[in-house]
């Protein structure tokens, strides 16, 4: 005679508070989506995490290039030899800002040589003339030898300032009131002949878009004419290396991203289609990829680029720059592997259990595609992307070596890398020209690779939940 176990087990009788606690606990446990899980694991991988932020910093810097007070990356100041780097605390204030308009005057002092006092006397009225004509402040540059002097008054480059009317305006003011017969008189009775040499514009950049021009204007407001000195040295044409690295990153990263995007679009579409359709069509499509794979792409690239070059003017009329087509060409080379990878992934996913399960449950094809297939394919694609970008950058460097890549005056890391090979010889190696671009490019590509590895580890479903 035992006690009959009550059907109603008291253990499961949860009174108010206990029930609430249980429910709260249940709520707190969240099912993890693929992305959250991946992000968590990526954060855990310190190297990849830091790489990610480093890359973000690189991209932000390159986007912000016009805002930074850097010297012009392309203006030529021809000199004998490249200048060695000057650490920031020793660099002199560099007023060589090239992106500006300059009004030039030559003065010949009568009876004597230029002194500071004399200079002060004659500089002021001319300065006033220009400031009145342009309605903004100027920056002065003066050089004198004997009784001859050259005065340059620089204005920031702004779309609103047109050169020719400005020159006329200044000339009018000069001949009208300030120096009627080409002579300027100072308060203490000295006179100097003054000649207006006209207004010239120096552009420190290639054609920039409106956004960049706006950024440049903002830069002037904040920093004025101040710009960094040759902190990383210059090359033999006087172009600041740091500036070239920053501006070059725009081109390189732009090429890499665009080309990768291109390869992504073509590759994913092609591969997914091939995988989904399966059977004979899949076979044929992959055969086509195999054949394309066998063509040595350098060849094709050389010819494609030559052909595109010919239609350069027509394309420019359509508003398409040579560089855009270049991206597409480069991207067109990398889609093959992407297509293969995607197709493999789609094939293996098509018949997995959870897809079957979803089908059994009655999910629509669209739902299957977007909720189940795409995220899994996407993870593979993302990993592959982070590994294609370095490959594209290296390929860009290779093309620059052949002279087929980005063209000067535009700057890219590939061109800098090529310049660095010319800076090496037994007599004297301009180490900064080699170290700078190598460090920049190396660090970025390293970060990309580490990030790619980290992403692969993070997104690998086999390891889900195992850490």
């Amino acid at each position, binding site marked *: 005679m035992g006690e009959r176990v009550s059907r109603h087990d008291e253990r499961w009788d949860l009174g108010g508070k206990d029930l609430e606690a249980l429910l709260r606990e249940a709520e707190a446990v969240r099912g993890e989506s693929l992305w959250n899980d991946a992000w968590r694991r990526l954060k855990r991988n310190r190297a990849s995490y830091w790489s990610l932020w480093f890359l973000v910093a690189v991209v932000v810097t390159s986007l912000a290039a016009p805002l930074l007070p850097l010297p012009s990356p392309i203006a030529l100041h021809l000199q004998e030899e490249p200048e060695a780097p000057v650490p920031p605390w020793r660099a002199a204030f560099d007023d060589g800002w090239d992106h500006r308009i300059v009004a030039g005057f030559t003065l010949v002092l009568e009876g004597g040589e230029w002194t500071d006092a004399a200079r002060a006397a004659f500089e002021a009225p001319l300065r006033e003339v220009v400031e009145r004509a342009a309605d903004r402040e100027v920056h002065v540059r003066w050089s004198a030898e004997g009784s001859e002097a050259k005065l340059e008054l620089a204005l920031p480059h702004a779309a609103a300032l047109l050169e020719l009317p400005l020159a006329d305006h200044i000339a009018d003011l000069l001949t009208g009131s300030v120096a009627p017969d080409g002579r300027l008189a100072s308060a203490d009775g000295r006179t100097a002949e003054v000649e207006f040499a006209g207004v010239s514009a120096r552009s420190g950049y290639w054609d920039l878009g409106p956004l960049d021009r706006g950024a440049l204007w903002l830069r002037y407001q904040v920093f004025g004419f101040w710009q960094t000195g040759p902190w990383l040295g210059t090359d033999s044409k006087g172009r600041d290396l740091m500036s070239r690295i920053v501006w070059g990153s725009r081109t390189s990263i732009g090429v890499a991203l665009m080309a990768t995007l291109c390869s992504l679009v073509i590759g994913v579409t092609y591969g997914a289609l091939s995988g989904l359709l399966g059977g004979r069509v899949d076979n044929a499509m992959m055969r086509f990829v195999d054949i394309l794979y066998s063509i040595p792409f*350098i060849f094709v690239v050389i010819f494609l680029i030559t*052909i595109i070059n010919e239609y350069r003017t027509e394309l420019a009329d359509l508003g398409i720059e040579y560089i855009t087509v270049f991206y597409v060409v480069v991207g067109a080379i990398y889609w093959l592997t992407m297509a293969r990878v995607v197709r493999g992934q789609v094939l293996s996913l098509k018949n997995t259990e959870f897809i079957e399960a979803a089908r059994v449950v009655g999910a629509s094809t669209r739902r299957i595609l977007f909720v189940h297939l795409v995220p899994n394919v996407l993870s593979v694609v993302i990993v592959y992307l982070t590994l294609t970008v370095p490959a594209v950058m290296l390929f860009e460097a290779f093309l620059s070596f052949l002279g087929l890549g980005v063209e000067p005056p535009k700057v890219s890391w590939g061109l800098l890398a090529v310049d660095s090979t010319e800076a090496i010889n037994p007599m004297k190696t301009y180490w900064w020209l080699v170290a700078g671009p190598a460090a920049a490019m190396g660090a970025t590509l*390293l970060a990309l690779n580490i990030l790619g590895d980290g992403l692969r580890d993070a997104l690998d479903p086999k390891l889900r939940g195992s850490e």
Partner: protein
Amino acid sequence: MIGFLARRALWFVVTLLAVVTVSFFLMRSVRGGPFDADRNLHPVIEKNLKARYHLDWPLWKQYLQYIGPLNLDEKGLVDGDGSKPWAGILTGDFGPSFKYRDFTVNDIIGQSLPISMALGSVAMFWALLLGLTTGVLSALLRGGKLDVSMRLAATAGIALPNFVIAGFLVIGFVFWLELLPVAGWGSLRHLILPGFALGAPFAAYISRLTRTGMLEVLSQEYIRTAHAKGLRPRTVLLRHAIKGGILPVVSYLGPATAGILTGSLVIEKIFAIPGTGTHFVNSALNRDYTLAMGVTILYTVLVYSLNTIVDLAYTFLDPRIELEEA
């Protein structure tokens, strides 16, 4: 096996034909001919020069002449001087080079290919040496500082263009240490630096592949069994783990060799090595049609056969894997 090889051979022919046709017409559609020079020729002379190489024939006839042993003159299909400059590639004759007129394409490839192969071998050697060592070490010491530094060192190979790496090597070993010659060809010492520069990027990939492969293998049950049996770690490693770890590397060897062939162009230029890589680009830039076609075909043949060999090797090395169509 026979079926496999037969199918491979068939696709090889198709691929080759496609490559040849595309390259042929692509090349001739670009401006500039092989005989354009800074000093223009008198029209009569230019005409004669072109006629000798049959460049005045219509394109399709040039194509047919190029492919097969068709003496189109004899068949009355063209008016010519009755001489055929070459027999067509089906007989293995790739024709005379347009740029290096004292050599046939066969001569040039015959001279330069062994050199490229030697360079490629040294590059492969460096790549495998560095890659396998760092990969294995980094897999064993997973997570440790050494792992990270090994991976960093390996990744350096793909973080810089190979000509920059070559530049560093030259500064270090030629100018500072004065151990090795700066360029040229002819002794083992000449091969060390170019081989390293060429192989470095591949070392990086191999390292990564090895590491991944090793990690997978090491987590398998039979490794744990081996440890449990009491085998020394070294035995476990060498006898069991590496087998699995090497397989991914083997499958990478195919594309790697293709990459070495094309990447060697830059290295050959910098180190003045007379290999085939230079001809890849120079022939295109010089519009040397025959040589360009010759190296294209060579490249296709090499890549294709290597892939086939790799697939065969796969089955050889791991009996579990069956020979199937990729």
